[in-house]
């Protein structure tokens, strides 16, 4: 069967990216799945042990359960705070004319700071002996000045999440701002003519107009919440007393500190499985809620 040139040419463009994807993503992902069935310290000859790693994860390892719970807490924080903050500020900034670029830049700056740098800076800010606690003390907030932001197991995860939020929400704001600017302004005029107030414009025009962006941001936030690593690793390394241990840091420790690369691979498979489930769940909820993405 003769295949026309026209049909072949598109593949010339796809194949290189596909090969790259196969080498860098698909291959290692399959390797992770296979190696999760082995006992392997990362350097030696791997020994096949079947589903032993998964058995240990589901029946013995309490830290895995704790890590998943922490990831869920992280998820709940991130699908609310930065989205609400980013959307609200985007609405406000979209009303500005002259100073819009200034505010976009200022709010976006934290996103471009490297996590290593920002994490170290905030660790210093949250030091109980200097930084914010000193400021709170001088302002008369005695109780606040004695808070162990990164040393109290009850609040350490929220403290790190706060920092990651500070880093992340500006990016969300810029995404929403861009989406809001794509909404046809005629719709707003028509609504005003019909007597709609600002709030009604927001509910009936703005939000429906950017629903695909909302869906995109939601799915990204949900998946990244389970893949997050940098701020926790830099600021607390899973401590104190495992109170900030998340899947990614626990995987890292198993792979490189405990020399249990096979077990770490199994944890990666679990982590990926959770992300996939959440993706489909979010797709279903988004469709039902009218936030369908193309």
């Amino acid at each position: 069967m003769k295949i026309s040139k026209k049909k072949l040419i598109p593949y010339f463009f796809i194949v290189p990216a596909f090969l790259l994807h196969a080498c860098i993503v698909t291959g290692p992902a399959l390797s992770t799945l296979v190696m999760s069935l082995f006992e392997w310290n990362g350097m030696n000859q791997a020994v096949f042990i079947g589903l032993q790693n998964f058995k240990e994860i589901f029946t013995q390892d309490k830290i895995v359960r704790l890590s998943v719970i922490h990831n869920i807490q992280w998820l709940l924080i991130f699908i609310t705070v930065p989205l609400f903050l980013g959307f609200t500020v985007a609405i406000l900034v979209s009303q500005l004319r002259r100073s819009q670029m200034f505010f976009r830049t200022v709010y976006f700056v934290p996103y471009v700071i490297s996590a290593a740098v920002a994490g170290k800076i905030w660790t210093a800010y949250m030091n109980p002996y200097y930084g914010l606690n000193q400021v709170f003390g001088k302002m008369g907030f005695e109780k606040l000045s004695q808070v162990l932001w990164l040393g109290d197991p009850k609040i350490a995860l929220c403290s790190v999440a706060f920092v990651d939020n500070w880093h992340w929400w500006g990016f969300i704001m810029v995404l929403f701002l861009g989406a809001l600017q794509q909404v046809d302004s005629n719709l707003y005029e028509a609504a005003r003519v019909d007597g709609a107030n600002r709030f009604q414009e927001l509910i009936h025009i703005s939000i429906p107009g950017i629903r695909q962006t909302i869906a995109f941001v939601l799915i990204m936030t949900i998946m990244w919440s389970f893949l997050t690593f940098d701020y926790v690793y830099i600021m607390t390394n899973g401590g104190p007393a495992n109170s900030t241990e998340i899947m990614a840091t626990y995987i890292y420790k198993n792979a490189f500190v405990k020399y249990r690369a096979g077990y770490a691979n199994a944890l990666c498979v679990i982590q990926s499985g959770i992300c996939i489930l959440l993706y489909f769940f979010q797709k279903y909820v988004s469709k039902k809620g009218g936030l369908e993405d193309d």
Partner: protein
Amino acid sequence: MRKFLALCLAGSLALSTAACGSAQEPEKKEGGGGREKIVISCGLADDSQVVVRQKYMDEPLKKAFPDVDIEFKMYNDRQSLQVEVAGGGGPDILALDGPTDVAEFAKSDRVLAMDSYAQQYKWDELFYDWAYGSCFYNGKLYSLPTSFEGMVLYYNEDVFEEHKWQVPETLEELEALMAEIKEAGIIPLSFGNANYQGAVDWLYSTFTSCYGGPEAVKSALEGNSKFTDPAIRDSLQMMVDWWKAGYIGDNSSQAVTQEDMIAFFAEGRAAMMINGTWATSQLGTVYPDCNWDSVIMPPPQGKDPIFPLATGGGWSINANSPNPDLAAEVLNFLFTNYEDHYASIVEANYQPYPLKTFEMEKIKGVEEKVYEQYEMLMDAQTDNRIGYCSWTFYPSEMRVYMNENTDSVFLDALSLDEYLEKSQSYLDAAIEAGTVPILP
């Protein structure tokens, strides 16, 4: 024209993929002009540290091996080195963190057994028996110890003078003093592990050896008694009690970094600090104005002071090295180049190799306090008043568990008994597998 451009674009994409997919150029083991090459791994160092290293190691190696290209390659951390070695590459000589790490590399046949070289160069006569013995795994020699160090109690002389406090000589005096120090609004013992959780091993190594007793620790590690026995349990209970009373780290050690720990001690915010002999280097370079001194941890009344010892790291030969004989020769040179080694200790605060032939007179030029620390080390070895630091003498999995869970005990997230039982279970597994390091 458009078709031509499209084909060029597709072609360049394909070429870039081919470039990415091609096998990484194998590390050249031949230097320029066909010379042999040896690569030695080392930790990250800033420019000033590199200059110092060049003076005491690079240049002497160049002179001793004029026909060999010898390169020091820096690694961010052990993990980057591990990944490279696991991939079949890596430097010829690996600088590893200590016997417990070496054991993992040895298990995986990633480092060479050096018994034949040991015979050739008589390394067993070179090193202290306890340090040399810690480098064996499954009866074979896999590394050579690069430093020896111990845990001491530092005190800030200015703070002590200001408050007219006396340096404690017994445990009882230390406990009374810490209460007084706390009353004065000063942190008794500076400690922080926010950026390095594993620093707790300095604490539990010190308490188990100094207050549980080295005999109890040795007996437990050799399987003749248990880590859960009263001697060790009581010593760790004391450590937990001190932490909860605010004596160690002011109840906030998990929020304080290692750098802060030393800063608080140097600035006088803390009066004392349990730290290793390696801390003198940081105190000397970063806080030259800090007036400090150190003593062995004060023993209980009527008992001898114990000096918990460790080897700070080890050099091993990469099993992938194409030049293992040359690597062994280079290693032997490094350990027998006494002149530059003594100079590096005196002039750059390098840590000494644990050599039997080490002559204290040769390092008389070091700061007096540092010299006194080394004298304490030597005396403790001579009098057999040595204890066991976990990073040299505990099995790897046991140590990792204890490092990760000591904070949980401090914060009441885990009971001491559960912690000790779990630690014992890891120790039992290691004893059965024969992977407990040799104890002196």
